[in-house]
Protein backbone atom coordinates (compact mmCIF):
# COMPACT_ATOMS: atom_id res chain seq x y z
CA UNK A 1 0.00 0.00 0.00
CA UNK A 2 1.23 3.43 -0.91
CA UNK A 3 2.02 5.60 2.10
CA UNK A 4 0.36 8.95 2.20
CA UNK A 5 2.28 12.04 1.26
CA UNK A 6 2.39 13.33 4.80
CA UNK A 7 3.67 10.04 6.09
CA UNK A 8 6.38 9.89 3.48
CA UNK A 9 7.21 13.55 3.96
CA UNK A 10 7.44 14.20 0.23
CA UNK A 11 7.72 17.93 0.63
CA UNK A 12 10.85 17.66 2.72
CA UNK A 13 12.57 15.32 0.25
CA UNK A 14 15.45 16.24 -2.00
CA UNK A 15 14.98 15.54 -5.71
CA UNK A 16 17.18 12.48 -5.62
CA UNK A 17 15.43 11.13 -2.55
CA UNK A 18 12.10 11.78 -4.22
CA UNK A 19 13.11 9.72 -7.22
CA UNK A 20 14.23 6.94 -4.87
CA UNK A 21 10.89 7.15 -3.10
CA UNK A 22 9.05 6.92 -6.43
CA UNK A 23 11.18 3.95 -7.40
CA UNK A 24 10.47 2.16 -4.13
CA UNK A 25 6.77 2.84 -3.82
CA UNK A 26 5.57 3.20 -7.41
CA UNK A 27 7.99 1.66 -9.87
CA UNK A 28 8.81 -1.47 -7.93
CA UNK A 29 5.26 -2.65 -7.19
CA UNK A 30 4.18 -1.83 -10.73
CA UNK A 31 7.12 -3.55 -12.33
CA UNK A 32 6.79 -6.80 -10.39
CA UNK A 33 3.42 -7.91 -11.62
CA UNK A 34 1.21 -7.94 -14.63
CA UNK A 35 1.87 -4.23 -15.02
CA UNK A 36 5.48 -4.98 -15.95
CA UNK A 37 4.70 -5.43 -19.63
CA UNK A 38 2.85 -2.14 -19.82
CA UNK A 39 5.47 -0.23 -17.84
CA UNK A 40 8.39 -1.58 -19.84
CA UNK A 41 6.88 -1.58 -23.27
CA UNK A 42 4.75 1.51 -23.28
CA UNK A 43 5.21 3.93 -20.42
CA UNK A 44 9.00 3.83 -20.27
CA UNK A 45 9.26 4.35 -23.99
CA UNK A 46 6.83 7.23 -23.85
CA UNK A 47 8.67 8.87 -20.94
CA UNK A 48 11.95 8.38 -22.76
CA UNK A 49 10.53 9.95 -25.91
CA UNK A 50 9.25 12.87 -23.87
CA UNK A 51 12.59 13.30 -22.12
CA UNK A 52 14.73 13.28 -25.21
CA UNK A 53 12.51 15.68 -27.13
CA UNK A 54 12.35 18.37 -24.48
CA UNK A 55 15.89 18.92 -23.24
CA UNK A 56 15.44 22.37 -21.80
CA UNK A 57 18.73 24.05 -20.93
CA UNK A 58 19.34 26.63 -18.26
CA UNK A 59 19.77 30.12 -19.67
CA UNK A 60 23.03 30.79 -17.88
CA UNK A 61 25.73 32.71 -19.71
CA UNK A 62 29.20 32.49 -18.21
CA UNK A 63 31.46 33.83 -20.95
CA UNK A 64 31.83 34.22 -24.71
CA UNK A 65 30.30 30.86 -25.69
CA UNK A 66 27.03 32.34 -24.37
CA UNK A 67 26.95 34.50 -27.51
CA UNK A 68 26.92 31.35 -29.61
CA UNK A 69 24.28 29.91 -27.29
CA UNK A 70 22.13 32.95 -28.10
CA UNK A 71 22.90 32.64 -31.82
CA UNK A 72 21.72 29.04 -31.76
CA UNK A 73 18.20 30.11 -30.84
CA UNK A 74 17.94 32.70 -33.61
CA UNK A 75 15.85 32.08 -36.77
CA UNK A 76 18.84 30.94 -38.81
CA UNK A 77 19.63 27.92 -36.62
CA UNK A 78 16.38 27.72 -34.62
CA UNK A 79 17.22 25.18 -31.94
CA UNK A 80 13.57 25.12 -30.83
CA UNK A 81 13.00 22.70 -33.71
CA UNK A 82 14.50 20.07 -31.39
CA UNK A 83 12.49 21.07 -28.34
CA UNK A 84 15.36 22.99 -26.78
CA UNK A 85 13.87 25.96 -25.00
CA UNK A 86 15.96 28.16 -22.73
CA UNK A 87 14.47 28.59 -19.28
CA UNK A 88 15.71 30.93 -16.60
CA UNK A 89 14.95 28.86 -13.52
CA UNK A 90 16.90 25.74 -12.56
CA UNK A 91 13.64 24.18 -11.34
CA UNK A 92 12.26 24.09 -14.88
CA UNK A 93 15.23 22.72 -16.78
CA UNK A 94 16.75 19.35 -17.61
CA UNK A 95 20.14 20.40 -18.96
CA UNK A 96 22.78 22.54 -17.31
CA UNK A 97 24.53 24.20 -20.25
CA UNK A 98 27.91 25.46 -19.04
CA UNK A 99 29.59 27.84 -21.44
CA UNK A 100 32.76 29.36 -20.13
CA UNK A 101 35.59 29.02 -17.65
CA UNK A 102 34.27 28.21 -14.19
CA UNK A 103 36.22 30.07 -11.57
CA UNK A 104 36.66 28.76 -8.06
CA UNK A 105 34.18 31.36 -6.89
CA UNK A 106 31.54 30.22 -9.39
CA UNK A 107 32.05 26.52 -8.73
CA UNK A 108 29.78 26.24 -5.64
CA UNK A 109 27.13 28.28 -7.46
CA UNK A 110 27.18 25.92 -10.44
CA UNK A 111 27.06 22.94 -8.11
CA UNK A 112 24.14 24.50 -6.27
CA UNK A 113 22.31 25.11 -9.57
CA UNK A 114 22.89 21.48 -10.45
CA UNK A 115 21.47 20.37 -7.11
CA UNK A 116 18.44 22.62 -7.57
CA UNK A 117 17.53 21.01 -10.89
CA UNK A 118 14.93 18.28 -10.76
CA UNK A 119 15.78 14.78 -11.88
CA UNK A 120 16.37 13.66 -14.58
CA UNK A 121 19.18 16.10 -15.35
CA UNK A 122 22.15 16.31 -17.66
CA UNK A 123 25.15 18.59 -18.04
CA UNK A 124 26.64 19.85 -21.29
CA UNK A 125 30.16 21.29 -21.24
CA UNK A 126 30.37 23.73 -24.13
CA UNK A 127 33.72 25.04 -25.29
CA UNK A 128 37.21 24.16 -24.21
CA UNK A 129 37.17 26.43 -21.15
CA UNK A 130 34.44 24.33 -19.57
CA UNK A 131 36.00 21.05 -20.67
CA UNK A 132 39.45 21.61 -19.23
CA UNK A 133 40.07 25.27 -18.44
CA UNK A 134 41.11 26.18 -21.99
CA UNK A 135 43.62 29.01 -22.24
CA UNK A 136 43.28 29.50 -18.47
CA UNK A 137 44.51 25.96 -17.78
CA UNK A 138 47.39 27.43 -15.79
CA UNK A 139 45.33 29.90 -13.82
CA UNK A 140 45.07 29.68 -10.06
CA UNK A 141 41.39 30.63 -10.12
CA UNK A 142 39.92 28.49 -12.90
CA UNK A 143 38.53 25.01 -12.35
CA UNK A 144 40.13 22.43 -14.63
CA UNK A 145 36.95 21.23 -16.23
CA UNK A 146 33.31 20.90 -15.26
CA UNK A 147 33.63 17.12 -15.00
CA UNK A 148 35.66 17.55 -11.82
CA UNK A 149 32.60 18.55 -9.79
CA UNK A 150 29.39 17.89 -11.80
CA UNK A 151 28.82 14.69 -13.81
CA UNK A 152 29.12 15.91 -17.40
CA UNK A 153 27.35 14.10 -20.22
CA UNK A 154 28.38 15.87 -23.41
CA UNK A 155 31.68 17.58 -24.21
CA UNK A 156 31.62 19.98 -27.15
CA UNK A 157 35.11 21.23 -28.09
CA UNK A 158 35.52 24.47 -29.98
CA UNK A 159 36.56 28.02 -29.31
CA UNK A 160 33.86 29.15 -29.57
CA UNK A 161 31.53 26.31 -30.44
CA UNK A 162 29.66 26.82 -33.70
CA UNK A 163 25.85 26.97 -33.36
CA UNK A 164 25.62 23.85 -35.50
CA UNK A 165 28.05 22.09 -33.20
CA UNK A 166 25.85 22.98 -30.23
CA UNK A 167 22.82 21.55 -32.06
CA UNK A 168 24.92 18.47 -32.75
CA UNK A 169 25.69 18.24 -29.02
CA UNK A 170 22.00 18.37 -28.15
CA UNK A 171 21.23 15.69 -30.76
CA UNK A 172 23.94 13.51 -29.23
CA UNK A 173 22.40 14.08 -25.81
CA UNK A 174 19.08 12.89 -27.25
CA UNK A 175 20.82 9.79 -28.57
CA UNK A 176 22.28 9.22 -25.12
CA UNK A 177 18.86 9.49 -23.48
CA UNK A 178 17.47 7.10 -26.07
CA UNK A 179 20.20 4.60 -25.21
CA UNK A 180 19.41 4.68 -21.49
CA UNK A 181 17.51 1.40 -21.61
CA UNK A 182 20.38 -0.27 -23.39
CA UNK A 183 22.82 1.11 -20.83
CA UNK A 184 25.74 2.00 -23.09
CA UNK A 185 26.45 4.22 -26.05
CA UNK A 186 29.24 4.44 -28.61
CA UNK A 187 31.49 7.47 -28.70
CA UNK A 188 32.79 8.98 -31.92
CA UNK A 189 35.79 6.66 -31.83
CA UNK A 190 33.66 3.56 -31.27
CA UNK A 191 34.33 3.10 -27.54
CA UNK A 192 31.44 2.05 -25.33
CA UNK A 193 30.58 4.32 -22.40
CA UNK A 194 27.83 4.32 -19.79
CA UNK A 195 24.71 6.05 -21.11
CA UNK A 196 22.90 6.27 -17.79
CA UNK A 197 25.21 8.74 -16.09
CA UNK A 198 27.71 11.45 -16.90
CA UNK A 199 31.46 11.44 -16.52
CA UNK A 200 32.81 12.56 -13.18
CA UNK A 201 36.49 12.61 -12.32
CA UNK A 202 37.48 12.26 -8.72
CA UNK A 203 40.71 14.09 -8.14
CA UNK A 204 40.29 14.50 -4.41
CA UNK A 205 41.94 17.30 -2.53
CA UNK A 206 40.96 20.66 -3.88
CA UNK A 207 38.49 19.38 -6.44
CA UNK A 208 35.89 17.58 -4.44
CA UNK A 209 32.59 16.24 -5.61
CA UNK A 210 30.60 17.65 -2.77
CA UNK A 211 30.50 21.39 -2.38
CA UNK A 212 29.89 22.78 1.05
CA UNK A 213 26.46 24.18 1.78
CA UNK A 214 26.31 27.89 1.12
CA UNK A 215 23.83 28.49 3.92
CA UNK A 216 23.33 26.24 6.98
CA UNK A 217 20.02 24.43 7.03
Amino acid sequence: MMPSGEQANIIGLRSREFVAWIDKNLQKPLKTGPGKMIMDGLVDKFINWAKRNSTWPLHLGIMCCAIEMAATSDPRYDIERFGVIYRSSPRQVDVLLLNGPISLKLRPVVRRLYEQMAEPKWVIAMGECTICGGPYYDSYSVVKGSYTFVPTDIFIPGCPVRPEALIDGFLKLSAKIKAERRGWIKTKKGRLVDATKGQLAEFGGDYTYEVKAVRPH
Partner: protein
Amino acid sequence: MKSKRSGPTDPPVGHKRPRGTFWRPLKATMRQLLQTTPGINKIVPGGRVPVTRLYPYEKIELPASFRGQHVIDWYKCIGCELCAKVCPNECIYFESLEVTDKSPYLHPSRAMMDENKEVVRRPAVDVGHCLFCGNCSEYCPTDAWMFSQEFEHADYSREDLFYHAEELKKPDAESDKKIVLINRMGEHPILEVDVCIGCRKCERECPTRCIDMVDGPNLRKGKPIVIPEFDYNKCIGCQQCVDVCPVDCLHMEEVGWPDGMKGFYNINFEGEVKLLEENEASIKAVTSGRRAQ
Protein backbone atom coordinates in the same frame (compact mmCIF):
# COMPACT_ATOMS: atom_id res chain seq x y z
CA MET B 1 -1.49 78.82 -23.09
CA LYS B 2 -0.31 77.64 -26.48
CA SER B 3 2.76 78.87 -28.23
CA LYS B 4 2.30 80.48 -31.60
CA ARG B 5 4.26 77.88 -33.45
CA SER B 6 2.15 74.89 -32.55
CA GLY B 7 -0.45 74.06 -35.14
CA PRO B 8 -4.09 73.25 -34.68
CA THR B 9 -4.60 70.07 -32.63
CA ASP B 10 -8.26 69.38 -33.35
CA PRO B 11 -9.20 68.25 -36.84
CA PRO B 12 -11.09 70.79 -38.78
CA VAL B 13 -14.78 70.54 -38.72
CA GLY B 14 -16.13 68.30 -41.41
CA HIS B 15 -12.87 66.29 -41.77
CA LYS B 16 -13.30 63.01 -43.61
CA ARG B 17 -11.22 59.87 -43.24
CA PRO B 18 -8.54 59.85 -45.95
CA ARG B 19 -9.12 57.46 -48.80
CA GLY B 20 -7.41 54.11 -48.73
CA THR B 21 -7.22 53.55 -44.98
CA PHE B 22 -9.05 50.27 -45.41
CA TRP B 23 -7.96 48.93 -48.80
CA ARG B 24 -4.34 49.95 -48.73
CA PRO B 25 -3.40 48.11 -45.48
CA LEU B 26 -5.44 45.11 -46.56
CA LYS B 27 -3.57 45.03 -49.86
CA ALA B 28 -0.26 45.16 -47.99
CA THR B 29 -1.33 42.33 -45.69
CA MET B 30 -2.45 40.18 -48.60
CA ARG B 31 0.85 40.86 -50.41
CA GLN B 32 2.82 39.76 -47.37
CA LEU B 33 0.69 36.66 -47.07
CA LEU B 34 1.43 35.72 -50.67
CA GLN B 35 5.11 36.54 -50.33
CA THR B 36 5.58 34.20 -47.36
CA THR B 37 3.31 31.31 -48.34
CA PRO B 38 5.41 28.30 -49.39
CA GLY B 39 5.07 27.66 -53.10
CA ILE B 40 3.49 30.97 -53.97
CA ASN B 41 6.50 32.93 -52.68
CA LYS B 42 8.47 31.71 -55.69
CA ILE B 43 5.96 33.13 -58.18
CA VAL B 44 5.11 36.43 -56.53
CA PRO B 45 7.63 39.29 -57.06
CA GLY B 46 9.56 39.98 -53.87
CA GLY B 47 8.70 36.57 -52.47
CA ARG B 48 10.64 35.61 -49.34
CA VAL B 49 12.35 32.34 -48.54
CA PRO B 50 12.68 30.90 -45.02
CA VAL B 51 15.95 31.81 -43.31
CA THR B 52 16.20 28.69 -41.16
CA ARG B 53 18.89 26.24 -42.21
CA LEU B 54 17.71 22.72 -41.39
CA TYR B 55 21.07 21.88 -39.88
CA PRO B 56 21.48 18.10 -39.63
CA TYR B 57 20.09 17.67 -43.14
CA GLU B 58 21.32 20.85 -44.78
CA LYS B 59 24.68 22.34 -43.82
CA ILE B 60 25.79 25.91 -44.22
CA GLU B 61 28.79 26.38 -46.45
CA LEU B 62 31.57 27.39 -44.11
CA PRO B 63 34.24 29.93 -45.07
CA ALA B 64 37.34 28.38 -46.62
CA SER B 65 39.47 29.59 -43.72
CA PHE B 66 37.31 27.89 -41.09
CA ARG B 67 39.41 25.82 -38.72
CA GLY B 68 37.81 22.55 -37.71
CA GLN B 69 39.45 19.18 -37.28
CA HIS B 70 43.24 19.09 -37.47
CA VAL B 71 44.69 17.17 -40.41
CA ILE B 72 48.38 16.37 -40.68
CA ASP B 73 50.14 15.39 -43.85
CA TRP B 74 52.55 12.67 -42.74
CA TYR B 75 54.63 12.99 -45.90
CA LYS B 76 55.36 16.62 -45.15
CA CYS B 77 55.70 16.51 -41.37
CA ILE B 78 59.31 16.29 -40.26
CA GLY B 79 58.65 15.96 -36.54
CA CYS B 80 60.33 19.22 -35.55
CA GLU B 81 57.85 19.84 -32.68
CA LEU B 82 57.61 23.53 -33.57
CA CYS B 83 53.80 23.36 -33.42
CA ALA B 84 53.96 22.07 -29.86
CA LYS B 85 56.23 24.97 -28.94
CA VAL B 86 54.07 27.75 -30.41
CA CYS B 87 50.79 26.29 -29.13
CA PRO B 88 49.37 28.73 -26.56
CA ASN B 89 47.42 25.98 -24.80
CA GLU B 90 50.17 23.34 -24.98
CA CYS B 91 47.63 20.84 -26.26
CA ILE B 92 49.89 19.23 -28.91
CA TYR B 93 51.76 16.08 -27.95
CA PHE B 94 54.24 14.14 -30.05
CA GLU B 95 54.00 10.41 -30.48
CA SER B 96 56.95 8.30 -31.55
CA LEU B 97 55.97 5.60 -34.00
CA GLU B 98 58.14 2.70 -35.03
CA VAL B 99 58.32 2.15 -38.78
CA THR B 100 60.39 0.03 -41.10
CA ASP B 101 63.21 1.70 -42.96
CA LYS B 102 61.18 1.41 -46.20
CA SER B 103 58.36 3.51 -44.78
CA PRO B 104 57.41 6.41 -47.07
CA TYR B 105 57.14 8.71 -44.10
CA LEU B 106 60.80 8.24 -43.28
CA HIS B 107 62.41 10.82 -45.49
CA PRO B 108 66.22 10.35 -45.72
CA SER B 109 66.82 13.99 -45.10
CA ARG B 110 64.83 13.98 -41.88
CA ALA B 111 65.77 10.52 -40.67
CA MET B 112 67.39 10.56 -37.29
CA MET B 113 70.81 9.25 -36.58
CA ASP B 114 71.56 5.53 -36.32
CA GLU B 115 69.53 4.42 -33.30
CA ASN B 116 66.51 6.59 -34.14
CA LYS B 117 66.44 5.72 -37.82
CA GLU B 118 63.21 3.72 -37.66
CA VAL B 119 61.22 6.17 -35.57
CA VAL B 120 58.99 8.94 -36.85
CA ARG B 121 57.43 11.57 -34.61
CA ARG B 122 53.97 12.84 -35.46
CA PRO B 123 51.72 15.25 -33.54
CA ALA B 124 48.66 14.25 -31.54
CA VAL B 125 46.15 16.80 -30.29
CA ASP B 126 43.92 17.10 -27.27
CA VAL B 127 40.96 18.59 -29.16
CA GLY B 128 39.14 19.27 -25.91
CA HIS B 129 41.92 21.69 -24.98
CA CYS B 130 42.54 23.22 -28.42
CA LEU B 131 41.94 26.93 -28.97
CA PHE B 132 41.64 26.54 -32.80
CA CYS B 133 43.85 29.62 -33.15
CA GLY B 134 45.77 28.18 -36.11
CA ASN B 135 49.23 28.98 -34.76
CA CYS B 136 50.38 25.43 -35.49
CA SER B 137 49.51 25.63 -39.18
CA GLU B 138 50.81 29.18 -39.42
CA TYR B 139 54.26 28.38 -38.04
CA CYS B 140 54.64 24.91 -39.59
CA PRO B 141 57.86 25.11 -41.64
CA THR B 142 56.69 22.44 -44.12
CA ASP B 143 52.96 23.30 -44.40
CA ALA B 144 52.02 19.89 -43.04
CA TRP B 145 49.25 21.20 -40.79
CA MET B 146 45.80 21.68 -42.23
CA PHE B 147 42.35 22.23 -40.78
CA SER B 148 39.35 20.48 -42.26
CA GLN B 149 35.78 21.80 -42.16
CA GLU B 150 34.73 19.14 -39.66
CA PHE B 151 33.32 20.73 -36.53
CA GLU B 152 31.15 18.01 -34.99
CA HIS B 153 33.55 16.99 -32.24
CA ALA B 154 30.94 16.56 -29.50
CA ASP B 155 31.52 13.39 -27.51
CA TYR B 156 30.38 11.53 -24.43
CA SER B 157 33.67 11.29 -22.54
CA ARG B 158 36.68 13.48 -21.96
CA GLU B 159 39.16 10.73 -22.87
CA ASP B 160 37.84 10.45 -26.41
CA LEU B 161 38.76 14.04 -27.13
CA PHE B 162 42.45 13.08 -27.17
CA TYR B 163 43.18 12.40 -30.82
CA HIS B 164 46.13 10.16 -31.59
CA ALA B 165 48.55 10.74 -34.44
CA GLU B 166 46.98 8.11 -36.70
CA GLU B 167 43.53 9.62 -36.25
CA LEU B 168 44.71 13.01 -37.49
CA LYS B 169 46.58 11.62 -40.49
CA LYS B 170 45.69 12.93 -43.91
CA PRO B 171 44.88 10.19 -46.45
CA ASP B 172 47.95 9.37 -48.53
CA ALA B 173 46.17 9.95 -51.83
CA GLU B 174 45.41 13.57 -50.98
CA SER B 175 48.99 14.50 -50.22
CA ASP B 176 51.04 16.19 -52.91
CA LYS B 177 54.29 15.12 -51.19
CA LYS B 178 56.07 18.43 -51.85
CA ILE B 179 57.96 19.59 -48.82
CA VAL B 180 58.79 23.23 -48.53
CA LEU B 181 61.14 24.54 -45.89
CA ILE B 182 60.42 28.00 -44.62
CA ASN B 183 61.90 29.47 -41.50
CA ARG B 184 58.76 31.14 -40.21
CA MET B 185 60.27 31.88 -36.82
CA GLY B 186 62.87 34.25 -38.29
CA GLU B 187 65.39 32.97 -35.76
CA HIS B 188 68.49 30.84 -35.94
CA PRO B 189 70.58 29.11 -33.30
CA ILE B 190 73.83 30.82 -32.34
CA LEU B 191 76.63 28.92 -30.65
CA GLU B 192 78.84 29.95 -27.75
CA VAL B 193 81.96 28.04 -28.64
CA ASP B 194 83.65 28.13 -25.24
CA VAL B 195 80.70 26.46 -23.48
CA CYS B 196 80.13 23.66 -26.02
CA ILE B 197 81.26 20.20 -24.89
CA GLY B 198 80.81 18.49 -28.28
CA CYS B 199 78.16 15.96 -27.23
CA ARG B 200 76.54 15.81 -30.72
CA LYS B 201 73.04 15.82 -29.24
CA CYS B 202 71.99 18.71 -31.47
CA GLU B 203 73.21 16.90 -34.57
CA ARG B 204 71.15 13.84 -33.67
CA GLU B 205 68.04 15.86 -32.90
CA CYS B 206 68.00 18.24 -35.87
CA PRO B 207 64.96 17.33 -38.04
CA THR B 208 66.45 18.79 -41.23
CA ARG B 209 70.04 17.66 -40.57
CA CYS B 210 71.34 21.16 -40.99
CA ILE B 211 74.02 20.60 -38.34
CA ASP B 212 77.47 19.35 -39.23
CA MET B 213 80.04 18.67 -36.51
CA VAL B 214 83.45 20.20 -37.16
CA ASP B 215 86.62 20.57 -35.08
CA GLY B 216 86.45 23.61 -32.84
CA PRO B 217 89.15 25.90 -31.54
CA ASN B 218 89.15 24.52 -27.98
CA LEU B 219 91.17 21.49 -26.95
CA ARG B 220 90.46 18.70 -24.51
CA LYS B 221 93.39 16.41 -23.66
CA GLY B 222 95.22 17.75 -26.68
CA LYS B 223 92.39 17.01 -29.13
CA PRO B 224 89.96 19.59 -30.54
CA ILE B 225 86.35 19.57 -29.26
CA VAL B 226 83.80 19.20 -32.05
CA ILE B 227 81.32 22.04 -32.40
CA PRO B 228 78.16 22.27 -34.51
CA GLU B 229 78.20 24.21 -37.74
CA PHE B 230 74.80 25.32 -38.97
CA ASP B 231 73.59 25.42 -42.55
CA TYR B 232 71.22 28.36 -42.28
CA ASN B 233 69.60 27.56 -45.65
CA LYS B 234 68.24 24.36 -44.15
CA CYS B 235 67.55 25.66 -40.66
CA ILE B 236 63.86 26.15 -39.85
CA GLY B 237 64.32 27.69 -36.41
CA CYS B 238 62.58 24.88 -34.57
CA GLN B 239 64.75 25.20 -31.42
CA GLN B 240 65.15 21.43 -31.04
CA CYS B 241 68.92 21.86 -30.70
CA VAL B 242 68.46 24.59 -28.09
CA ASP B 243 66.10 22.38 -26.12
CA VAL B 244 68.32 19.31 -26.02
CA CYS B 245 71.61 21.15 -25.35
CA PRO B 246 72.80 19.96 -21.91
CA VAL B 247 75.04 22.96 -21.22
CA ASP B 248 72.88 25.75 -22.75
CA CYS B 249 75.54 26.80 -25.22
CA LEU B 250 72.96 27.59 -27.95
CA HIS B 251 70.50 30.43 -28.08
CA MET B 252 68.15 31.77 -30.72
CA GLU B 253 68.83 35.05 -32.44
CA GLU B 254 66.99 36.95 -35.10
CA VAL B 255 68.97 36.65 -38.30
CA GLY B 256 66.60 37.42 -41.15
CA TRP B 257 65.81 35.62 -44.33
CA PRO B 258 68.63 33.83 -46.15
CA ASP B 259 69.46 35.33 -49.58
CA GLY B 260 66.50 37.69 -49.57
CA MET B 261 63.79 34.98 -49.73
CA LYS B 262 64.10 33.80 -53.30
CA GLY B 263 61.43 31.16 -52.95
CA PHE B 264 60.47 28.06 -51.04
CA TYR B 265 63.32 25.76 -50.19
CA ASN B 266 62.89 22.04 -50.43
CA ILE B 267 64.75 18.94 -49.37
CA ASN B 268 64.85 16.21 -52.00
CA PHE B 269 65.27 12.53 -51.21
CA GLU B 270 69.05 12.79 -51.49
CA GLY B 271 69.05 15.33 -48.70
CA GLU B 272 70.06 18.33 -50.81
CA VAL B 273 68.41 21.67 -50.23
CA LYS B 274 67.33 23.42 -53.42
CA LEU B 275 64.55 25.68 -54.53
CA LEU B 276 61.24 23.84 -54.92
CA GLU B 277 61.12 24.30 -58.71
CA GLU B 278 64.50 22.63 -59.12
CA ASN B 279 63.52 19.66 -56.98
CA GLU B 280 60.11 18.80 -58.40
CA ALA B 281 61.40 16.35 -61.02
CA SER B 282 63.32 14.26 -58.51
CA ILE B 283 60.36 14.13 -56.08
CA LYS B 284 58.08 12.87 -58.84
CA ALA B 285 60.55 10.18 -59.88
CA VAL B 286 60.97 8.83 -56.36
CA THR B 287 57.33 8.92 -55.30
CA SER B 288 56.08 7.23 -58.48
CA GLY B 289 58.65 4.47 -57.99
CA ARG B 290 57.49 3.94 -54.39
CA ARG B 291 53.89 3.64 -55.48
CA ALA B 292 54.82 0.95 -57.99
CA GLN B 293 56.36 -1.12 -55.21
